[in-house]
């Protein structure tokens, strides 16, 4: 067996294990986003939405759909990797990976694919749920939509991985999602266009990375955005490379996993 074939087998094994993990606990991983987003669609879309009127020339529920899909993708991909990698550290099954001849890049890729798979599946589920509330939704630019979906899932899976590497306790894996990610996502244009904000807060919002992710996805799904799509895509790719390289460096050093 060639070395490349062995590496591919290792990657398939880790990926299958990661996907099997979140599918085994689907009630915890796949159902909650569908339930929560259904409530958002009912309350903000069907009940309050008609009173709000249009946002960027679109029905409010239509405007909200890309934001809510993105919110689900970001939280699911992040949560998958941070809980899975911290879990293997906590249960010591990280040792299974460390004593094996798997290169670090394969370990990182396996966990990231797991996070991307959960993020994309949850994104699709939430989109299908949204069709119950807005059946006429059509995706304007499928290629851009899919690209942003996958890039976002990769980016936040990597962030989850970095969080898990540094985490020592269960508190450490909940601090960032609760106190950093969630506020940034909610203030990142999921429910509104920044054009409705006073000029000062519009400028402040431009420092929120979630704004770029949500708006680029909205550009793909609806053809409207508050920011430059090409700049957003370049920044996403830049941060994926940066975080990926950093994660590999930490794995090589053994930070958080090796004494």
């Amino acid at each position, binding site marked *: *067996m060639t*070395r490349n*074939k*062995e*590496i591919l*087998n*290792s990657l*398939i*094994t*880790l990926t*299958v*294990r990661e996907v*099997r993990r979140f599918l*085994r606990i689907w009630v915890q991983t796949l159902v909650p986003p569908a339930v929560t987003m259904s409530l958002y669609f009912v309350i903000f879309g069907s009940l309050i939405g008609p009173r709000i009127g249009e946002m960027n020339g679109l029905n409010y529920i239509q405007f909200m759909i890309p934001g809510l899909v993105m919110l689900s993708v970001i939280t699911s991909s992040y949560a998958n990797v941070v809980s899975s990698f911290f*879990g*293997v550290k906590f*249960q*010591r*099954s*990280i*040792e*299974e*990976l*460390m*004593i*094996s*001849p*798997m*290169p670090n890049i394969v370990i990182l890729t396996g966990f990231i694919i797991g996070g991307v798979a959960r993020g994309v599946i949850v994104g699709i589920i939430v989109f299908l749920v949204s069709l119950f509330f807005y059946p006429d939704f059509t995706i304007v630019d499928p290629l851009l939509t899919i690209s942003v979906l996958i890039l976002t899932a990769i980016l936040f899976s990597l962030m989850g991985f970095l969080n898990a590497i540094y985490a020592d306790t269960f508190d450490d894996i909940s601090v960032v999602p609760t106190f950093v990610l969630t506020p940034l996502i909610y203030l990142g244009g999921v429910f509104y266009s920044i054009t409705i904000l006073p000029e000062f807060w519009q400028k402040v919002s431009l420092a929120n990375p979630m704004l770029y992710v949500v708006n680029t996805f909205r550009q793909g799904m609806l053809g409207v955005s508050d920011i430059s799509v090409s700049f957003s895509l370049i920044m996403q790719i830049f941060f994926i490379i940066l975080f990926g390289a950093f994660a590999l460096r930490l794995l090589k050093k*053994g930070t958080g996993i*090796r*004494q």
Partner: protein
Amino acid sequence: MTDLALKISSLEKKYASGVKALDGIDLEVKKGDFFALLGPNGAGKSSTIGIISSLVTKTSGSVKIFDIDIDDNFNEAKRKLGVVAQEINFSPFEKVEDIVITQAGFYGISASQAKPKTETTLKRLGLWEKRSEQARNLSGGLKRRLMIAKALIHDPELLILDEPTAGVDIELRRGMWDFISEINNQGTTIILTTHYLEEAEQLCKNIAIIDKGKIVENTSMKELLSKLDVQSFILDLNQPQSNLPSLAGYTMTLSDPSTLIVAIEKDKSINEFFGELSKIGISVKSMRNESNRLEELFMEIVKSND
């Protein structure tokens, strides 16, 4: 080509806390050996094994596994190595068979290739009937066996067993000894750490004792046991004795009227002692060692290093 499975030179480990766990140890384990690495708690055994298996980073020194320096090509060295860790380290929520097949996958073996070997190994270790159960439902002993199955799935040439029988009942322990001996007889080099010194005495050909981060004894088991000056035996007597019998040159005590404990020096034969006993009209029903011989030596060596 060397005939060594493991060569450790001037290995040092200092943890961030400032604790020096290894103070320049040198160790060689020959191919095919069944080697015991013993030492009291905190002596440096786990640090040594951790460095060999990449769970701990060394401060300085070198480790070669089948002549492959871990600094040059650790991944290649890892292929030859199987480790049964001291702590259970598999996911409790996965099925027994999946855990073993997944471990094979980490070594580049596809699931279809791993299945026949998994079946053979699980059957040999008495786990086949439990293959579809989640690992958390296994008893402590079966979990230990699963650790061994996992470590063997890629046919390692060097198997390190770190306290493999800790907390395992005697019947299961003996079954595991047979299995491990069989693997050794098939050519796999084995390094064993254990707190059951009887286990090391029965299984291992060579031994190193580590204490306070230094190797304080490194020899063959036979050589080490021959250093024992006195052995104590417990004799069950056919007739109860009301007084302690007296025999010149032997130290004896009666623990109860039917049980005599005697210390026999290395240069005296047991036959000679039985002859003397017979002369004073005492006959023996059965006899056993008072304590494990290796245990006595171990305590002596560790004490002298204090």
